[in-house]
C-alpha cells in the first residue's frame, strides 16, 4: 500500500482536506524543490546534481512581439521551459488572443484544455490550452489564472472539438464556460456533487449520498 493513502484521513463530506504540498505562486521553483515530502531518504547526491534553478527562459518570437505590441502588459509572461513555449496571459484578453491564434496565426488544432488547482493562490485555477499548428508544425501552451466561481468564455466557436474538453474541465474542476452549447458533466453522473480534481477533494472521497441512493450500498470503497 502506498504511504500517502494510508496517512490520508478518511474523508468527511463537509470538511475538505487541505493538501500539504502546493507550490507557492510566483515563488521561484527552487523554493518548492527544497521541500522534501518523501522524508530524509530523498537526500541523495543524484538529487543534488539536478539543476535547482528555474529552467524557463524568456521566449522571443515574432508572435510574442506582435502580441506584446498589441496588448502590452496583458501578456504576463512569454517563456520557454525545457524547450516548450508558453504564454501566460491576463484573463481579460485570453479569449481574444485565443481567437487571434486560431484565426490569424494558424493554430488550427486545439490539442487539449485542462486546468490545475492551486488552492492557496488568490486566483486558484490555471486554465491551460495546448495548441498546435499544422502549417507551422509548432506547439504552444497558453495559460491564464482565474478565480474561484469565475467563468471563462467558451472556445467552442473557435475549435468545435473543445466541447467535450471544456465539459471535462467543468466536471473535474467546476469551472464554467460561458456560451458553451451543452455544459453538463461528462464523466461523472449528472447529479454528482463535488469536483474530484480539485486539491481539496480527497483521493477516496466520494458523493456518499449518490452512492447510497443509486448503488444501494453504504460505500463505494
Amino acid at each position, binding site marked *: 500500500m*502506498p504511504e*500517502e493513502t494510508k496517512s490520508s484521513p478518511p474523508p468527511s463530506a463537509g470538511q475538505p482536506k487541505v493538501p500539504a*504540498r*502546493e*507550490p507557492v505562486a510566483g515563488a521561484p*521553483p*527552487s523554493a*518548492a*524543490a527544497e*521541500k*522534501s*515530502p*518523501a522524508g530524509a*531518504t*530523498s537526500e*541523495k547526491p*543524484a*538529487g543534488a546534481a*539536478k*539543476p*535547482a534553478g528555474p*529552467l*524557463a527562459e524568456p521566449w522571443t518570437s515574432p508572435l510574442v512581439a506582435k502580441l506584446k505590441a498589441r496588448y502590452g502588459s496583458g501578456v504576463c509572461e512569454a517563456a520557454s*521551459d*525545457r524547450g*516548450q513555449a*508558453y504564454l501566460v496571459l491576463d484573463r481579460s484578453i485570453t479569449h481574444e488572443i485565443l481567437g487571434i491564434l486560431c484565426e490569424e496565426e494558424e493554430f488550427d*488544432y*486545439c*490539442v*487539449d484544455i*485542462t486546468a*490545475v*488547482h492551486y488552492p492557496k493562490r488568490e486566483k486558484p485555477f490555471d486554465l*491551460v490550452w*495546448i495548441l498546435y499548428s*499544422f502549417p507551422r508544425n509548432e*506547439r504552444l*501552451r497558453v495559460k491564464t489564472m482565474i478565480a474561484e466561481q469565475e467563468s471563462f468564455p467558451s472556445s467552442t466557436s473557435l*475549435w468545435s*472539438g473543445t*466541447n*467535450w*474538453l471544456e465539459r471535462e474541465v467543468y466536471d*473535474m474542476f467546476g469551472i464554467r464556460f460561458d456560451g458553451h452549447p451543452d455544459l*453538463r*458533466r*461528462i*464523466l*461523472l*453522473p*449528472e*447529479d454528482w456533487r463535488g469536483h*474530484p*480534481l480539485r486539491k481539496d477533494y480527497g*483521493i477516496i472521497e466520494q458523493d456518499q449520498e449518490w452512492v*447510497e*441512493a*443509486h448503488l*444501494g450500498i453504504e460505500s463505494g470503497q
Partner: protein
Amino acid sequence: MPDPTPYPSPLEQGEPDKTFLDSNELILNMGPQHPATHGVLRVILKLDGEKVLGAECVIGYLHRGVEKIGENRTYAMFNPYVDRMDYVAAVSNGLGYCETVEKLLAVEAPPRANYIRVILTELNRLASHMLWLGTHALDIGAMTPLFYTFRDREEILKIFEKYCGARLTTHAFRIGGCLYETYDGFERDVKKFVDGVPAKIDEYEELLTSNRIWVERTKNVGKLGAADCKALGVTGPVLRASGVQWDVRKALPYAAYPDFDFEIPVGANGDTYDRYIVRMQEMRQSLRILRQAVEGIPEGPIMAKVPKVIKPPAGEIYHSIEAPKGELGYFIVSDGSTQPYRVRVRPPSFVNLQALDVMVRGQLVADVIAVIGTLDIVLGEVDR
C-alpha cells in the same frame, strides 16, 4: 435506504411526447451493454425512420479517476496505471508517460532502450490494429477476420509475455529506459513474426478489400472531411484517412523514430473504407519499421542515469506520441516533489469519439455500428 431516484437523462428534458407526435422522431438507446459498442458506451440516437438525426454519447461508465490517482502516487508508482487506459495498446501508454517524465527530468533514454521501445510499440500498434480489424469486421457481419487476426495477435502477445511476463498490461518501460534486457532469441522471434505477417495481411485483404458486402457497408459511410477533423481535434488514422498527412512520429519525432524510413499512408475520401485501407497500410509500414529496428538495434546500456527517487525540478511539460488511436499526450505539472502535482492525459479515443455525432448524421442506423467500429475507441481510455 432512500428510494432510488431515476437517473436524469438529458432526453427527459423538454417535451418528448410532443416531439414524437410532431415529427416522427424516435429516440433509440444503444448500450451501454451492447456488443458493438466495444465496452460500455451508451449512445442515444435520434432517428427519423432508419435515418439518424443525431447521436449523443453518454460516457464515464469506466471512469476510475486515473488523473487523480496520478497526483497521489510517485512518478514511478503511477507508471503501471497508465497501462490500464488503452489496455489494447498498453505499451504505447507507457512509452508516452515514461518519455514525458524523462523530458521533465531532462534525461534521455539510451539508444538501445529507444530501439527496444520502438520495437515493442510497433508490435503493439500491429496488435491494436489487428484487434480493431477483427472486431470492426465482426460488427459489420464478417466473422472470419476475427479468428485470423486473433490468431496472429497471439504471436505478438507471446513476444510480450516472453519479454516482460505480461501480455496486455505490460508495464514494459521504466522512466529512463527499459528494465529488462531483451531475452535470448528476441530478435529471432520478432524477425520470424515480421516475415510471416505480410502474407497474413494479404489474407485479411483478400477477405475484405474487394469484398462486395464489405465495400457496400463501408464506402461513403461516416465521412469526415479534413477541415472537420482539424476542428474536432481528431487524430490518428481517422485524420489521415481524410487526406491529412500528419503523424506525431514524423511531425514531432520521439524515441528512435528519426532513424527509420517509413511512410505515412493517407486516404482521400475520409470514409470508413479509407480508414480501413489506411490502417492496413499502416500495419505494413509498422513491419517496415520493425525490420529496420531489429536489424539496427545497437548494443549498450538500456537504462539512463536516473535517481532512485524521482524528483523532477518544478515545471510543466507536455509531450505526446502517436498511439495506435491518435495523439496520446501527457501534461505533467511538477512542484519539485516526488509526486506529480497534476497529471493530465490527452486521450485520443475521447477526442475522436466526439466526432461520432458529426459522422452518423444522415446515415442509416446500421451504419452507426460501422462508424463506432471505424473510430477505434477503447472505453478504458475514453473514461480513464
